[in-house]
């Protein structure tokens, strides 16, 4: 009952972007970032009274270690008639990526030991540059934007992170690191660039969590 879709056509590509967003949120950290290398296969199933479900086979690579790829099967369910609930995404990742334990610990300790709270803006800059010392925070922005992209994806949208406008660390009494981001998301169908405020918590063992996010108010 599931219809085969040409993987090069936009319906499959949009579902893949939502799946990748979710995966970045789940697996993202300062030491690694996953990007889609290829969408190998896509199928769609229209479930009466429920919604549209996409079955995807993705090949992903680590942006810091491009020779290493993993496969991922994903199911993306867009709920019927709903513009307010996020698609359900289930993923299975096959293959192992390089361990980021060392890099994560190093980043964690470095930020914890800063006297003044970490602040940065425009990542990458207008010319596309990301200085090496900002790469970990850039990858955490991918995790944060992955959450927002997943939560806000619909069948007729395709989001990408265009730029990190601003990031500010907020010191906490517990063990988590907290970063408040202002990110710019590019939506392919409307071509709009949408600013979002996202708070990200991260810990080497506990991973990334987004306690709050909202579309930035007009004029910000």
């Amino acid at each position: 009952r599931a219809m085969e879709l040409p993987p090069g056509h936009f319906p499959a590509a949009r579902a893949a972007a939502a799946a990748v967003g979710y995966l970045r949120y789940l697996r993202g950290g300062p030491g690694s970032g996953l990007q889609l290398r290829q969408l190998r296969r896509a199928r769609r199933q229209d479930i009466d009274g429920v919604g549209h479900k996409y079955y995807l086979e993705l090949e992903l690579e680590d942006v810091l270690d491009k020779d290493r790829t993993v496969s991922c099967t994903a199911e993306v369910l867009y709920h019927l008639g709903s513009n307010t609930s996020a698609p359900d995404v289930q993923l299975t990742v096959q293959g192992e990526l390089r361990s980021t334990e060392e890099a994560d610990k190093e980043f964690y300790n470095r930020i914890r030991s800063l006297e003044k709270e970490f602040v940065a803006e425009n990542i990458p800059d207008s010319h596309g540059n990301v200085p090496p010392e900002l790469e970990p925070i850039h990858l955490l922005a991918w995790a944060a934007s992955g959450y927002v992209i997943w939560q806000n994806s619909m069948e007729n949208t395709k989001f990408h992170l265009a730029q990190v406008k601003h990031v500010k660390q907020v010191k906490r009494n517990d063990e988590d690191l907290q970063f408040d981001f202002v990110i710019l998301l590019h939506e392919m169908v409307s071509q709009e660039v949408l600013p979002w405020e996202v708070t990200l918590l991260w810990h080497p063992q506990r991973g990334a969590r987004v306690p709050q996010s909202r579309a930035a108010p007009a004029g910000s």
Partner: protein
Amino acid sequence: DQVLHIVPETIQQVQHLQLLCSTFMLDLWKPLLPEDIRAGEDLHVRVPAPLVQEVKDSLAQHMISYRVLIPDVQKLVDQSMPREKSSHRGVSGGYIYTDYHPMEEIYQWMTQIQKNNSELVTQHILGKTFENRTMYYLQISQPSNKTKKIIWMDCGIHAREWISPAFCQWFVKEILQNYKTDPKISRFLQNLDFYVLPVLNIDGYIYSWEKDRLWRKSRSPYENGTCYGTDLNRNFNSSWGSVGVSFNCSSDIFCGSGPESEPETRAVAQFIKNKKSDILCYLTIHSYGQLILTPYGSTTKPPSNNEELMQVAKEAAAALKGKYGTSYRVGSTALILYSNSGSSRDWAHTIGIPLSYTFELRDTGTHGFVLPADQIQPTCEETM
């Protein structure tokens, strides 16, 4: 020029250093501002060559010890430039094709290119933008007694897609540098003329440099100056306003007040209409997505010569992939990307230009519009 490392020990030393920095207008690398100089903290300062001795004497006089961190700044700068950059001189005296350039520099580049290659290149006025800037195109044409067909290529219809004008400039450089030695290019020029418009949406491009890096549209005002810009690639007279557009000026896909409502659109359309019987191929360069898009965006009904269009595009994508392994998808906009109307590529095809393509260059979303300059070279090389 030298960079000195100093650790001031006393308040007096800090004050003297602050005085030196402001008197000589020295380039402080660390900290950034003289008022942030502190006793016991590292100071790195670049001293221009003619002042080096004087500054060192002054430091010695105040018993401030220093270490030379970088003995020759220029040497370090030269070493850090990739060597290929020097091989692109000659065609236009030192222009760096692996960097993004603001509009002023692109205007100068066009003048230089024509001057240095006047046997092949002529610069022509296409029209004016809304903010009254002149739109120029370059004609690359080998003198001959046979009339030649034309390949038209425009870049920069969308302001934020900086890799696009970078590609047009690269393309021109590549042709001019190699036409005598490369048999393929030489054969092209025997039979075809190239017309290249390096930046179509000049007002928008400048705006993306000065005010908003992610601006897309033109800069014409609507609604009493409360809202700016038309998406020029929704403004052409091809099923204008029917799908994939907005009639609201604040949208990034605002299609304008009518087909060809914008001066930039009219400038291009008029020219192409006049020459259409000689134009073999219309190319318009965008980013991002890694796609070669064929007509149409407004309908999935294929154009009459779809087989030919797809075949040529597939061969192009294969050749592109052969260079660095970059994958491009091929197909109509309506199937691959989204529905849209009023695009320049669709319009060119409907008036009779057989081969009409939109190229969406690197990448697929990792950097998107803000593609690092170090990808200019590989992107352009593979696309050539």
